[in-house]
C-alpha cells in the first residue's frame, strides 16, 4: 500500500507538468486541462499496478489522457465554436521581448489544426520519437512525419509573414 502511494506521488511530481501542458494544448482551456489531468491521474492510480515499466509512464499517462479527453466529448456535446484568440491570452503581463514572442507564437500554435499541433506538442514537449508518436496516436510513422513537417512549415510561414514590429501596437 505504502509503496503504491510512493510510486504514485513520484509519478505525479515527475509528470504532472508535462501532462498539464499537453492537456492544455489539446483543449486550449486551463480549467478543462486541469480537470483532465486530475481525471487522468485518478485513473492512473486505479490502474497503477498495470504499469510495469516506469519508462513507459509518460506515454501511458498520455494515452489515458487522450482517452479521457475523447470521453469528455462523448459525455456532453460542447458547442464547438471556432477557436477564439481571446481565450488563449496569457494572464501574465507581457513585458520582455521573449515573452512577447512566446505569446505571439502561442496564438499561432493554438491556431494550428489539432492534427498538426498534437504531434508537435508530443515531439517538442514530450520528447517522443516519430515511432512513439505514431503508436500513441494510432497513425503510421510517415503520416506523423508529414504532419510534423506541415506544423513547423505553417509556423515558420506565419513567423515570416508577421511584421517586424509586431506587438508594439499593444502599448
Amino acid at each position, binding site marked *: 500500500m505504502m509503496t503504491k502511494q510512493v510510486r504514485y506521488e513520484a509519478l505525479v511530481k515527475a509528470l504532472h507538468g508535462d501532462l498539464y501542458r499537453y492537456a492544455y494544448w489539446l483543449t486550449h482551456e486551463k480549467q478543462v486541462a486541469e480537470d483532465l489531468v486530475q481525471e487522468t491521474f*485518478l485513473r492512473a*492510480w486505479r490502474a497503477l499496478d498495470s504499469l510495469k515499466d516506469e519508462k513507459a509512464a509518460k506515454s501511458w499517462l498520455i494515452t489515458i489522457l487522450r482517452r479521457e479527453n475523447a470521453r469528455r466529448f462523448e459525455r456532453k456535446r460542447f458547442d464547438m465554436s471556432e477557436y477564439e484568440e481571446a481565450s488563449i491570452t496569457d494572464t501574465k503581463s507581457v513585458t520582455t521581448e521573449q515573452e512577447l514572442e*512566446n505569446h505571439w507564437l502561442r496564438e499561432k500554435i493554438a491556431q494550428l489544426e489539432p492534427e498538426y499541433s498534437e504531434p508537435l506538442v508530443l515531439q517538442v514537449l514530450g520528447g517522443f520519437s516519430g515511432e512513439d508518436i505514431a503508436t500513441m496516436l494510432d497513425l503510421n510513422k510517415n503520416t506523423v512525419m508529414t504532419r510534423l513537417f506541415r506544423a513547423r512549415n505553417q509556423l515558420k510561414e506565419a513567423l515570416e509573414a508577421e511584421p517586424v514590429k509586431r506587438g508594439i501596437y499593444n502599448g
Partner: protein
Amino acid sequence: MDDLQFRRAIYADPNNQDADTIAAQQDDASKKQFAQDICKLDEKIKQALQIPVPDDLCHKLILRQTLASHQVQKRKTRVHLALAASVAIVGGLMLNFMQFSSAYTNLGDYALAHVYHEQGSFANNATNQVTLASLNQKMAAFDGNFSQPLGKLLFADYCRFDGMKSLHLVYQGKTSPVTVFVVPKNEQLRFSTAFNDEKLFGSSIEFIKSNIIVVADKNESLGQWQQSISETVSWSI
C-alpha cells in the same frame, strides 16, 4: 539528398541525427543554415509550449488520490464488517442447529445410545426398589398408570430423551437390567418397532400420546415384556 527531401526531414524533426541529413549539412552551408534556423524556431516553439503549470496542481492531484483511496478503504471496511456479520450469523445458526437438532433419526438408535450411555449407573442386583405407587405418581405426567408391577423396579425417574421429558425405568432382568422408556410422541424421531445391535435389542409399542420402548439384552424375551406392558398399562384421557 535533394533539397526538398532535406527540408522535409528537418521540418519533421530538427534534431534529426540521420547520417544522410548530417552529411548533407556538412556538404552544403545553406542547408546547415536552414537546419540551424529551424532549430532556433523549435527552441522558440518549445519556449512557447512551456505554459506555466498551476503551482498547486501537484498537491491537488495527490490530495484527490488520497481522498479517493480513503473512500475506497471506507467502502472496504464496510464490506468487511458485513462479511464478518454474515459469518457470525451463519456460525450462530450452525451452532443452534447442531445443539438443538438430534443426531439420531429414529427412536431405536436413540434408545440404544441412551442405554449405553447410562450402562454403568445400574447394577442388575441392586437392592433399592421403587414402589408401584411412586412409579404411578411419575407416570401421571404422561397420563399413564401401571396396574401391576412389571418386575423388580430398580430405578424410575424423569430424564431427557432427545430433549423431551420422558420416564426412564430400569427393571431387574435375567442377566442385565431391562430399560423401559416412556416417551411422548415426537415427529423428529422416526418410530421404529424393533431395533437391535450386537448386544442389545429393543422394541417400541405405540400408544395414543406416548411410546413405550423396551431395551434389553438378548437373553430377555422382549415379546413377554411387551405383552405384560400392554396388559398392565392404562392411559387416562
